[in-house]
């Protein structure tokens, strides 16, 4: 990981995966807290794979806005590396500290995950959650070009899942899903795990359910790159949204489905070009807001973070961003 041509922002994320098995370098205990009250079995043949993105979303949000501020003040490359050295030197769970200080709602990050659990239960799926034992898929290593590290991590992660008796993985974060489903089989010999995108399970099981959104709302859907273009899950979320009474789906004219505009947070880009990433987030938020929707629905923790910040900067206050899981969970109640 020492090649001087790799931007430091990426080596920072990669280093965290190697040392702590998550992109933030946070302690694992902190991350699994969202599931404490849900009574999910710690061992099961089918597991819900929560990934880093949602679990750390509020920390990531704080971290990224901090990095963004620093990027604006010193356009350079030293910033993320200084940050990394700083974190290492202190030896503390810095993002965790930030989240305690800055996060207004400590529980916010848990909402899409809690909603997902509720939906799976309502679909009659039996599953467990590995909590602290959940390995990191290592997607940022792959995207950074650190394929040797990725390959090592993939084998370790696979072995861990196998040793815990896992046979089937329901994955929710698009980057994790793509990594487990498409990349692991080429990096792990005799790969033998069933990987199922959360979205597929839902669309296979939800049509029999009565879904009623509490109230009336216009929603637009933002396709995450990895879902739409890498995994071709384009119709599924739309079919689900159309099933929900009380919702009207309004879409952008050109930029939807396979031609949806990236939120600007792809493949570690936001760690290398925080300010540019922010500009792209604002652009995408504007495109979506122009549909006249009350809610932007998407299904990726990275997109949610980017679009929230984009809307804030675009001063669009009468529109909010929610995960598809939250919309479904709210409609199950209705």
């Amino acid at each position, binding site marked *: *990981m020492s*090649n*001087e*041509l*790799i*931007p430091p922002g*990426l080596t920072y994320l990669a280093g965290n995966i190697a040392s702590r098995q998550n992109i933030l370098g946070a302690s694992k205990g902190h991350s699994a807290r969202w599931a404490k009250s849900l009574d999910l079995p710690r061992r099961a043949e089918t597991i819900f794979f929560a990934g880093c993105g949602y679990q750390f979303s509020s920390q990531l949000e704080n971290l990224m806005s901090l990095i963004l501020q620093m990027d604006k003040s010193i*356009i*350079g*490359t030293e910033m993320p590396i200084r940050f990394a050295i700083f974190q290492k030197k202190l030896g503390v769970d810095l993002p965790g500290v930030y989240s305690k200080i800055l996060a207004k709602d400590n529980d916010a990050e848990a909402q899409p995950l809690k909603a997902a659990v509720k939906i799976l239960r309502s679909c009659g799926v039996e599953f467990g959650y590995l909590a602290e034992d959940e390995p990191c898929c290592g997607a940022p290593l*792959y*995207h*950074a*070009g*650190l*394929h*040797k590290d990725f390959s090592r991590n993939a084998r370790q992660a696979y072995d861990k899942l196998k040793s815990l008796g896992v046979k089937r993985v329901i994955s929710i974060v698009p980057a994790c899903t793509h990594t487990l489903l498409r990349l692991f089989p080429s990096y792990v010999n005799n790969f033998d795990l069933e990987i199922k995108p959360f979205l597929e399970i839902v669309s296979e099981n939800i049509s029999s359910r009565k879904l009623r959104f509490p109230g009336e709302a216009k929603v637009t859907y933002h396709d995450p*790159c990895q879902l739409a*273009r*890498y995994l071709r899950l384009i119709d599924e979320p739309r079919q689900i949204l159309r099933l929900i009474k009380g919702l009207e789906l309004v879409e952008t004219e*050109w930029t939807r489905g*396979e*031609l*949806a*505009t*990236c939120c*600007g947070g*792809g*493949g570690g*880009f936001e760690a*290398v*070009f925080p*300010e*540019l990433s922010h*500009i*792209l987030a604002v*652009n*995408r938020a504007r495109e979506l807001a122009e549909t006249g929707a009350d809610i932007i629905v998407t299904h990726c923790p990275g997109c949610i973070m980017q679009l929230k910040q984009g809307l804030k900067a675009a001063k669009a206050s009468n529109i909010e961003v929610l995960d598809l899981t939250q919309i479904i969970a709210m409609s199950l109640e209705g």
Partner: protein
Amino acid sequence: MTVFKDYKKEIMGAAHDERLRLALSRAIKSFRSNINDALKKFPHTIKLAEEVRGIKEKAIGEMEKLSQQACEAIEANKGKAYIAGTPEEALSIIAGLVGRQKLIVKGKSMTSEEIGLREHLEKQGNEVYETDLGEFIIQQMASKPMHILSPAIHVPREDVARLFTKVLGQEFSSDAEIATLVSAARDFLRDKFFRADVGISGANVVAAETGTLFIIENEGNIRLTTGAPPVHIALVGMEKLVSTLNDAYKVSEVTWRYANYTVPSYVSLVSGPSKTGDIEKVTTYGAHGPKEFHVIFLDGGRTELAKHTLLRQALYCLRCGGCLYECPVFAVTAGHFGDKYFTGIGAVWAAIISKDIEKAASLAYTCLTCGRCKERCPVKIDVPEMVIELRRLIADDERPK
């Protein structure tokens, strides 16, 4: 790291340039509407594009054979053909043909940008005019192209009016009609075509079996550039070769359609110097068109690139430019996110063709790998896959040769 630092400063400067963003947002909007119309009107293009992918895959595998074949065909047509291994060789062949103190008119060619042809000829004491309107604007601004088909895509009309006031010696108000600006450029360049000693062009596709260059355009400047002066020199990257005329036609149609045209105003097919047999059936070279026709096929790393399993896809590129309108980073930075070629695919060219690994790394890590370019691409070039492979080569320090 200093290359990355300078580069980051450059693209961030561009990202804060409101003029640039205005020009691009106008261009993207009209591109989307045009391409949708063009594909709706000629829906067979999508299937044809799949066929073209196959044609390109095959042709890239036999570039060397095809260039030999094309050279023989051109010589049989009484033209002259050359294979240049490196940019330096190409420059020296062309400089030798042109000489000094000549007036040259040029059609737009990315390959000539790649090797710095105009600058080289100017240094040799020649007067060179870019005749494509966008390229003309860029030349007069002393800037560099920001899009492969629309080099001045980042310049809004108001800025063109200001520029023309300065360089054409005529007053244009900032709200001057676009038509007025176009006509002013026409008047300025008109006599250059007929006074020129040499016309230089590129080519979109070349049929090896007959040595025929296919050159697609709308402005009519290519017809004049390749028709009026006594000498026509064409510089062509070897990746433009396909086997047959039939293949070349298919590639051409897909190229212009995905470049957002139902049909372009002109497609020139040039295979040799002009000739006549009208007096006693004796073939005489040099009628109304050029008497001399020279074609230089440039390797410049292309045969090396063709050996790479994943990165060779970069050579399938038809240069329709459609992908650029889909790139979210390009939408705010234009060609600043680029080297000789732009965006993610530009990173591959920077690494292998320009052999500038630091620039290539900077570009590779600017790509979002969002993959929207691939969706637009007629030949489905997997840019994210190439970019990630390039990052791997960089990380493993396996610098591509």
